[in-house]
């Protein structure tokens, strides 16, 4: 390894440790300000997503471009050298962003064009105009060096402390406002009409939400860039939704995810000067999104799959035990199916599998699960025997099934041949309370213990 590459590694490490340890004043300020931006983006984004206005933010960010260019050109004309001022550029972005928003609203209101088309039209128009104006800016003497391209791709490293104070300050105000009208925003997003009937001015609330979203979008332009800033608003709340069904938890989590993505983006971009912060922020957010999508407690794919599987296993298990019981019932005699006698009888594997139409893989899976859980034990002659606990559960399962069947037969006009199938679905979700209620209702018609099956049992007949 040559000396120069060692040097490069060395200086990279140097940069990284500087960024991590926050030795640099500028990095510290940028980190704090941008993290705050991510937090407020997560909060506002939560309501924006719930209000189904997510794409509007994308339009605003793109519509800001011509405003930035015009503001630069105007400022340079009026007072040469003032075109790079963040305040001036943001003002331009704000005006044209709002103009774009207003235009989509107007198109939707007064024409028959649908919202998605209206958004696309305005986005294309303003972005095209902005790109055209940018070529004009590039030709001016100062334009090339003005760093306007940072607005498109984002670069936190280009931010100076004063800009960041502005961004961070506005972010704090936005976040506080959002928390202040939390109730009202949630009502607006859930049931706009009810809010209006209760006397809330929904256009005002809607306007406030839009204003907050526009504000976050615009102050995020320099750090994330207009192409990606919308992700700052959308990814955190969408990721947070997988973890919680509670709006407060969801919005808090969205704020954390937004803040964390921004912090990681800033640190990495400060460590590797060629790495733009915007993409890193968005990629970090996307990574958290994928993790949430898979593992999210409430709606993630994995927890859902697992609970679905557990439910199926529970059903399969009680079906298997019931089959064991019903196989032994005619052999032992209807009144002799005590727990004790059930455990003493051997069950033939083939006969058991014939009790229900199990696919063979499923049957063997269930049997080995039951053996594993100590409900069945294998005998020396390749058969099975119910354990004490297995027999107990089998009796419970049969009782549940038959009570429900008898209930269906006596209380509804279901065809007796269909009752078995109807009972199959419901019996697994009956809780002890409902079971007691069933027994109470059927008390006069029932013998003690496990009632006989109201219909012939399929597998056992042969």
């Amino acid at each position, binding site marked *: 390894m040559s000396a120069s590459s060692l040097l490069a590694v060395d200086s990279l490490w140097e940069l990284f440790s500087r960024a991590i340890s926050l030795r640099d004043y500028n990095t510290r300020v940028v980190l704090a300000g941008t993290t705050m931006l991510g937090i407020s983006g997560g909060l506002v984004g939560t309501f924006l997503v*719930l209000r189904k206005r997510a794409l509007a933010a994308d339009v605003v960010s793109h519509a800001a471009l011509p405003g930035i260019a015009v503001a630069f050109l105007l400022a340079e004309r009026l007072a040469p050298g003032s075109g790079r001022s963040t305040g001036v550029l943001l003002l331009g972005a704000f005006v044209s962003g709002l103009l774009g928003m207003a235009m989509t609203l107007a198109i939707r209101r007064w024409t028959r064009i649908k919202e998605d088309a209206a958004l696309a039209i305005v986005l294309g128009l303003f972005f095209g105009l902005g790109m055209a104006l940018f070529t004009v800016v590039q030709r001016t003497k100062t334009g090339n060096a003005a760093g306007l391209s940072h607005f498109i791709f984002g670069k936190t490293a280009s931010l100076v402390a004063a800009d960041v104070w502005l961004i961070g300050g506005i972010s704090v105000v936005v976040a506080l406002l959002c928390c*202040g*009208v*939390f*109730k*009202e925003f*949630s*009502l607006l*997003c*859930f*049931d706009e*009409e*009810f809010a*209006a*009937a*209760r*006397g*809330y001015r929904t256009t005002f609330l809607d306007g406030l939400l839009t204003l907050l979203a526009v504000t976050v979008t615009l102050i995020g332009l320099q750090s994330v860039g207009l192409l990606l800033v919308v992700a700052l608003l959308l990814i955190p709340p969408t990721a947070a*939704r997988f973890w*919680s*069904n*509670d*709006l407060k938890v*969801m919005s808090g989590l969205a704020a954390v995810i937004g803040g964390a993505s921004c912090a990681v983006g800033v640190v990495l971009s400060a460590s590797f000067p060629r790495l733009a912060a915007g993409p890193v922020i968005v990629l970090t957010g996307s990574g958290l999104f994928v993790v949430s999508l898979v593992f999210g407690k409430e709606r993630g794919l994995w927890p859902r799959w697992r609970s679905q599987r557990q439910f199926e296993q529970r059903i399969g298990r009680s079906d298997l035990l019931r089959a064991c019981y019903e196989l032994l019932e005619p052999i032992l005699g209807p009144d002799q199916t005590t727990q004790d006698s059930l455990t003493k009888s051997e069950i033939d594997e083939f006969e058991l599998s014939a009790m229900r139409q199990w696919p063979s893989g499923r049957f063997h899976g269930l049997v080995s699960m039951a053996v594993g859980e100590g409900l069945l034990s294998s005998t020396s002659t390749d058969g099975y025997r119910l354990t004490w606990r297995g027999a107990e559960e089998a009796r419970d399962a049969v009782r549940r099934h038959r009570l429900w069947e008898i209930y269906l037969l006596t209380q509804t006009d279901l065809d007796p041949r269909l009752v078995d199938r109807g009972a199959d679905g419901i019996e697994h979700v009956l809780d002890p309370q409902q079971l007691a209620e069933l027994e109470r209702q059927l008390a006069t018609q029932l013998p003690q213990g496990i009632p006989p099956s109201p219909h012939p049992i399929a597998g056992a007949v042969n």
Partner: protein
Amino acid sequence: MSTPLVVDHEAMLEPVPQPVVRQTAPAKSPLLIEDVTVAYHHRPVLWNIDYQAPCGKLIAIIGPNGSGKTTLIKAILDLVPRAAGQVLIFGEPYGQQRHRVGYVPQRTSVDWDFPVSALDVVAMGMYRKIGWLRPVSRKYRDAAKQALDRVGMVDFASRQISQLSGGQQQRVFLARALVQNADLYFMDEPFAGVDAATERAIVDILRQLRESGKTVIVVHHDLQTVHEYFDEVVLLNMRLIATGPTADVFTPDNLRKTYGGKLALLDQLGEKMAQPRSR
């Protein structure tokens, strides 16, 4: 409270003519609709509606699809603009009487996959009272729980609303209106697509409300149950067909007028007025 004293005092100084107190019946009526007309995109959907609701009754608004039942309620609650006419709630415009009016919108009008619990939804009925910038305190949460208890849903208070059945969702909506403790209620199809248990629970609530002197106006679809549930009916098909006590007004003849094809002329007129726009 102090006003009578002042009047007395002045009366002692100089006798003035007795002020004319207009204690007319309409001012007391929970709902007075005068000549209301509503148009969507220049196409009238309600024509010249006049109605005065009696106090303490269960009133059904009945009419075929597209007859303007929901629109009438929305026009009363200032949710859609009126082209003409006025509405008085207990003698005053709705804007001044909101606190006395409870509203149960159609269940299908919202997205139930929203990240809130049943209790949160009920608490929304009190947001106005709680005020801006304040969180929902213990006191209000307890009130919301009580309202849920009234509709038999207290066990589901912390359940996320998408995990409730349609009937349960409807009862949560009802609880959100009950928690306001209003004097006049509007309910838009509360019986649509609910289970038998919910239907019974809602009917019980309606009767309780009537016993405590409240007036309830319900958009209703099921003609079978009108006689059993309601004291008064409003038969509506873009214009008012008939109003009054159920026994007098809910007659085959009136129903034929409401649902039958006798209003073809009105339909044609409506279509004609809509035509220039659709081109």
